[in-house]
């Protein structure tokens, strides 16, 4: 089992929902984003507006794991690279070493609260209890490992059942994010990578990221569209007369 994500560049509409969902899910301090958007806008003969929704790639050969001097950063069985904030000394070697710049050191100035010096909102207070962030340590996207673990414990399938699926994937209105098991050739992610020529960012680093990207045109292509499944017939709710 190796959790992975596919980001469809032809679908992402740069709406920022993934960033917001992650902030809520993990009570992120004001100055931190785990996922980020990279906006690419080119002119010329074939102009394009592309948005790369990026987050930790959960690399198979992760430089951040290699360099961590404390064992705080480790790669789990299921491929998720996690940081144990209780072990991290905040040396930032991993921050510098991640070639994708997906790690953030939580310095004090990044945790000044939503409204510095004015109020601490109820949500922030709740967050302090429900999801601890330690100033002086490093953090990053964890593929919503909490959701995966809790979901699996309930017998749910990450990528299929919402409760076990990352928050950003669930919220994306464009359905540009797909989550699932890269080791399972029948999973949606494996299929998309295979059929839509998924690519990883900077393969030359030999990190083997678990996040893939795909691109393409809207409509008109003659190849069978992998998404073309009949939609579930919606239930009509409350029609009378």
């Amino acid at each position, binding site marked *: 089992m190796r959790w992975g994500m596919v980001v469809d560049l032809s679908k992402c509409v740069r709406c920022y*929902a993934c960033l917001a969902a992650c902030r809520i899910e993990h009570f992120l301090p004001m100055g931190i984003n785990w996922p980020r958007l990279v906006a690419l806008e080119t002119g010329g003969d074939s102009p394009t507006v592309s948005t790369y929704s990026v987050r930790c790639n959960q690399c198979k050969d992760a430089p951040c794991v290699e360099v961590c001097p404390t064992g705080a950063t480790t790669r789990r069985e299921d491929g998720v690279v996690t940081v144990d904030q209780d072990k991290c000394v905040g040396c930032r070697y991993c921050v510098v070493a991640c070639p994708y710049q997906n790690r953030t050191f939580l310095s004090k100035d990044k945790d000044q609260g939503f409204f510095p010096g004015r109020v601490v909102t109820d949500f922030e207070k709740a967050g302090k209890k429900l999801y601890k962030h330690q100033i002086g340590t490093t953090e990053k996207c964890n593929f919503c490992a909490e959701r995966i673990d809790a979901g699996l414990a309930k017998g749910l399938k990450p990528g299929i059942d919402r409760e076990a699926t990352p928050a950003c994937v669930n*919220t994306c209105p464009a359905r540009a994010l797909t989550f699932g098991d890269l080791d399972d050739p029948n999973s949606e992610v494996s299929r998309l990578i295979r059929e839509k020529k998924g690519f990883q960012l900077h393969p030359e680093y030999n990190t083997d990221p678990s996040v893939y990207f795909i691109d393409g045109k809207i409509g008109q292509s003659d190849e069978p569209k992998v998404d073309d499944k009949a939609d579930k017939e919606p239930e009509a709710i409350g029609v009378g007369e």
Partner: protein
Amino acid sequence: MGERKVIKTTCKGCHGGCGVLATVEDGVIVHIEGNPEAPTLGTMCSKGLSSIQHVNHPDRLLYPLKRTGERGEGKWQRISWDEALDTIEQKMKDSIAKHGPSSIAVSQGTGRGYNEYTHRFARSIGTANIITPGYICHSPRLGLYGLVTGYGRLYCDYHGWGGEYPKTQISWAKQLEISSADGEMAVWFLNSLKHVKNLIVVDPRETALSSRATLWLQIRPGTDAALALAMINVIISEGLIDKEFIEKWTYGFDKLAERVKEYTPEKAAEITWLKAEDIKKAARLFAIDTPGCIQIGSSLERQANCGQTLRAIICLLGVTGNIERPGSMISWVPPDTGQREDFFTEIPITDEMRKGIVGSDQYKMGAARTAHSDTVIKQLLNGNSVIKVWFSVGGQQILHLANTKEVMEALKNLEFLVHVDQFMGPMAEIADIVLPAAHWLEIDDIFDMHPRFMIEAHNRVVDPPGEAWQDSKIFNEVGKRLAPKYWFENVEKMLDYQLKKGNMTWKDFSKKVVHARMGKDQIYYKYKTDYWRKGGGFPTPTGKMELYSTVLENLGYDPLPHFQEPGESPVSTPELAKEYPLILTTGYRQPFYFLSQYRNIPWLRSFQKDPVMQIHPDTAKECGIEDGDWAWIESPRGKIKQKARLFPGILPGVVMATANCFYPESPGPLHGLLKSNPNVLTSNNHCDPMYGSPDLTCLLCKVYKAEDDKEE
């Protein structure tokens, strides 16, 4: 851990409608996410999610306030609701006694889910002087669709309920993918793209979808009518029309055919700066690969030729038979509760009310049910104002109407201004009384921004802060004092009343959250049945879809669509264009802002601090501007400053400025109102003859580097 519960509700952080699950622990919202059971499939955008930073915002208005100093001086005194309501009642009654009910204006901003109350309240007290941005946003479409279909609402059938999805879609001046505008949710549109064969984007700027579309028509702003008419020309001359539909169900085809003869693709290419070949291609795609639909953006309605532009596009739908077909444009049948509009239309506009509507003599389509805002402003300036008292609920007219400086002057001449809002923005700053409003997470209400196939419930998740009230309660309480006949004992009774046709109470509906007519229960091809008219047909005077509009003819307008140059353009005002050589368009909806809202929400502000102006790198070079520079944008009316973003995807010579922006953190009363707001540049002198819409999205300007970021 305390008690945890999940409350189902509905977001209206934009035009709205996403189903929401809010998790509350010990009375605190600890999580929100989309409701997967709702028609929005569990998705939510950054605005809706960031509502979490809205509820405890330290700048929320908490109590009714009364102005104690000069207008705009920022001196306020907290008062009780009773005092506030008494004062409002008294001022309104005095004004009615002295000048008649039409002297009262009731205003709102864009649709924020309380439209029904605005209109009902106004009508209940005997005025139809309702001020809304509708005439530059959605209403022209509704009115002109209304000449064709029942209640004037045509939507794209994205849902496949009739067995087909649209094969060809035109996204025409629209960014539905991020705007979820006008009752259509982005997620539905984006989902339908899985099934589309051709996507055509008509936009002077590249959008998230344009480079992946079948065809992108990078049009000169303000010339869309010429494109639509040329497409009709191609479709007719190449015999691609829907013959059966035209013969049986349309009126005036021959006259239309005659009219579009002058709009050859070549001529249109010259007007629109497109290639004739591309115009032909677009026409063919749309006519051959049917069914198809067109998503019309409100950029087209913020132009002084909007009526005719929309007419042309609707005729394009007509000649291709893309009406009421599965996968085309359709008017949804509402659920059994009926349209929420019934809640206000049940109070009719009397002749006297109609006579009192400001601008009704001139803008016969636009100012038939609501006032014409720019005329209201001109009257206030000229001292002959019909409007004396203004009851404003959630809308920043001071910033969203054309020619900000005039609007600021004009509003000073009001006798009495009440503003209802969540924050102290520029409009509240100049009011006499400010009332605190609740956020959608704090209210119990029924949501239906635009009548469509469903209604949804807002269920209160947390209590409003301080003494803030939900808008519906404010309307009800003021309403009870002035027109008790039309108002209710309390909000719950009022909600019950709105649901009565569906045999539901508010309590039932509140649990149900979504009440919809979807799937097989929707009705297509209504014109082939008795739905609108016995024996079939459209609810128009001729019983047909009127390509040639008898209604417009009777009102004295051109019954056939035509193209007209914008009020200011290199073609219509070549002299002016020498000094102001660039075309200015405004709008540029940002996914994380809603008009001027949310610049005070830290999460959302973090995505883009300053208003951004897009400009082509070549044009920028000529203006001496580099990426990230502050730049002046200047028109004959004034100048503003925005941050330049060099964007190769915008048509050279065109500048796109972010609209509806002020700086909540800047000191009042203006809050940086004049610094970056493009309406400082726009003119309210040249308006659409039918709707009165001014040119906000096609003007002339010049651009040059601003030295620093100091406020002028």
